[in-house]
């Protein structure tokens, strides 16, 4: 199995380390030419969604990746990645892939002083540590999406088919359970 990690901006190295710790090979997607290499899953890391959205388009990655996601490529978006996948964002007009039937709220906890850490139950994984950095949350999910974690009354993780999103950053911890959960989804996709 091989995972492509979007590496145009943000905390992509942290995801690469998590994948390495799980013995899974990965490579960085920085421009259209990088898509020549076949891959079985995609990670959209934390960072600034406005920057990533712009660079995806400017560097020729947007259309081919959107098509792959629509055709069932397993994808895992953390924080900014969640916003790239959301069909609706309450307080922002910009959209990116818009492949997942969720309603997101951007910078939902305010500025950096609103950033926090917590713990919550993740469906099937037990209690996991959560770090929210100028994070979004999910205000609602469509009929096809499933809620995986709720913290402080807000939805902070969800999946829809092979698309997985978290408002928090599992890549900032040594705890690899959420990455393993994603890889199981990707593995089930086969290739």
């Amino acid at each position: 199995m091989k995972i492509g990690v979007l590496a145009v901006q943000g905390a992509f190295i942290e995801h690469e380390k998590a994948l390495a710790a799980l013995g899974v090979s990965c490579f960085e997607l920085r421009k259209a030419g990088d898509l020549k290499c076949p891959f079985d899953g995609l990670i959209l890391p934390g960072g600034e969604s406005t920057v990533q959205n712009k660079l995806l388009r400017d560097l020729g990655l947007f259309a081919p990746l959107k098509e792959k996601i629509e055709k069932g490529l397993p994808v895992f978006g953390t924080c900014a990645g969640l916003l790239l996948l959301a069909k609706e964002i309450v307080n922002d007009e910009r959209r990116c892939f818009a492949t997942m039937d969720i309603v997101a709220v951007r910078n939902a906890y305010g500025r950096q002083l609103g950033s926090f850490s917590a713990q919550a139950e993740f469906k099937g994984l037990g209690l996991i540590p959560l770090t929210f950095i100028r994070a979004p949350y999910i205000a609602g999910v469509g009929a096809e999406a499933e809620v995986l974690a709720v913290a402080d009354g807000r939805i902070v993780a969800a999946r829809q088919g092979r698309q997985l999103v978290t408002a928090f950053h599992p890549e900032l911890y040594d705890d690899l359970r959420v990455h393993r959960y994603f890889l199981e989804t990707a593995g089930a996709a086969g290739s």
Partner: protein
Amino acid sequence: MEQDRFELNKNLAQMLKGGVIMDVTTPQQAKIAEEAGACAVMALERIPADIRAAGGVSRMSDPKMIKGIQQAVSIPVMAKCRIGHFAEAQILQAIDIDYIDESEVLSPADDKYHIDKTKFAVPFVCGARDLGEALRRINEGAAMIRTKGEPGTGDIVQAVRHMRKMQAEIRRLASLAEDELFEAAKELQVPYELVLYVHRHKKLPVVNFAAGGVATPADAALMMQLGAEGVFVGSGIFKSGDPAKRAAAIVKAVANYNDAKMLAELSEDLGEAMVGINEQEINLLMAERGK
């Protein structure tokens, strides 16, 4: 400051990695920067080149001006306070700033002490010319480091010198035997625990950006290849002929800093770069402020 808060503040810098932080003086410039792909903006009344030209004492910006920029963009907004001026820092924290730059670009308020940044909930970024300065700032609570470079000059030589020195010192620490680290801590004038961290991880405990003199996509790529994790661009953008185009080109250059072919395309037709001053031609070395 609790450990948890420090971690969250370090984490925000991690999210900024691979990005470009741009100096802006108006909400309109902030929007241009955001649209060009800035991962954060630094709100200040005058960009370093103009501070240099105007002379006199330069201070924290008007909070009203900073708030205007906070309302204009959705990305993180940073602002500068003077070295040692903890009251300016308190004011910036009170207006919910995302990051404070305790900056040598402004006139220092204290020629001996930096701000005790552990007393604040908001994160700080500080400039450094070498590993000792970087670790001293981290010990005081800085959650992000940048090279000092020489702000407002458009001359990259100092940023290169500072980044190379820091990386060389990190490599040296990594190569020492563990029982030699106590002496290294004494030489660097920093706590042993920080020296041990660098020795074990071969990197700073916080994110390290390049700053001071970046004017072109090639400058940004150079700093990234030398080990910077992202880039601050101060005067280089809004002192140039076509700020929007240059800003977007620098953003793409940071994302693909190893791709010379793309860098060549990005460097085409950018219009006039900021004029720039060579380091021998300037009277005021801002990098000498705060050690």
